């Protein structure tokens, strides 16, 4: 049940970072499926999640949606949550912590309306990639 909730939250997260390289989304999805297998799988999950956020912010900046300072501000705030949840997720295999972490990431990304609006448009263009990732 918790894993299903995390998967739903991951899909919602993808909505906000869909401009990032498809491989990070794909890697994150695969790693979530292996969440209870090993610490390495959970670390992979967190790394690909972080890379997806970074990639998307870089794209948003390159497309002049946000400036470098805002990109770094957003990234820094998100990394604060990343740091505080990392141990519970990777060491304790706490799936609810992962869901909470994603909620904080989404909340932060949504706070910036220009970024959120841009993400919505990117999402429309990224549907094919998402379908491929989720095999739907």
């Amino acid at each position, binding site marked *: 049940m918790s894993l299903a909730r995390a998967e739903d939250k991951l899909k919602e997260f993808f909505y906000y970072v869909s401009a990032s390289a498809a491989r990070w989304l794909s890697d994150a999805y695969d790693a979530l499926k292996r969440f209870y297998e090993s610490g390495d799988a959970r670390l992979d999950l967190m790394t690909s999640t972080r890379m997806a956020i970074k990639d998307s912010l870089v794209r948003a900046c390159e497309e002049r949606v946000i400036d470098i300072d805002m990109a*770094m501000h957003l*990234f820094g705030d998100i990394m604060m949550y990343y*740091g505080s949840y990392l141990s519970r997720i990777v060491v304790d295999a706490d799936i609810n912590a992962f869901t909470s972490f994603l909620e904080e990431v989404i909340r932060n990304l949504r706070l910036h309306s220009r970024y959120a609006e841009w993400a919505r448009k990117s999402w429309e263009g990224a549907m094919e990639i998402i379908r491929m990732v989720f095999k739907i």
Partner: protein
Amino acid sequence: MSAVEAREKLKEFIKMIGAAPKDVLVDIIRLFEKFWEDTSYRVELMGLIRNAVRSSIADVFNDKRYRVGVALALYDDFVSAYYARYSDIVNKGDIGAFMVFLDKAIEVLKSEDEYREIVEDIWIDLQEMLKEVLGR
């Protein structure tokens, strides 16, 4: 670990974040003098350092939007070093951990040629200001 050594390391670090606002750099130096007094000062010091690094990187890369990937990667590496020692620094007041963090942060920031060259130019003007603040 002596306070003198730590102060020298901080000075070396300040050299690498010279593009941050000058008043923030001064505040960092002043707060460092209260490192051993209370947790709240260390929290404030670390918060200021994080913001100063973000400002410095953003300032250097702000007119080079195509380099945002480099800027975010640099900040990402810094943030990893930051959170790796954060608890020991803030909760335990461990000056050794603070020195290790500064060493790592300096190494990270120095690794990017374009960033390093710009902040090293700024350093020339900063030296006089630091002499006044440090009283020597």
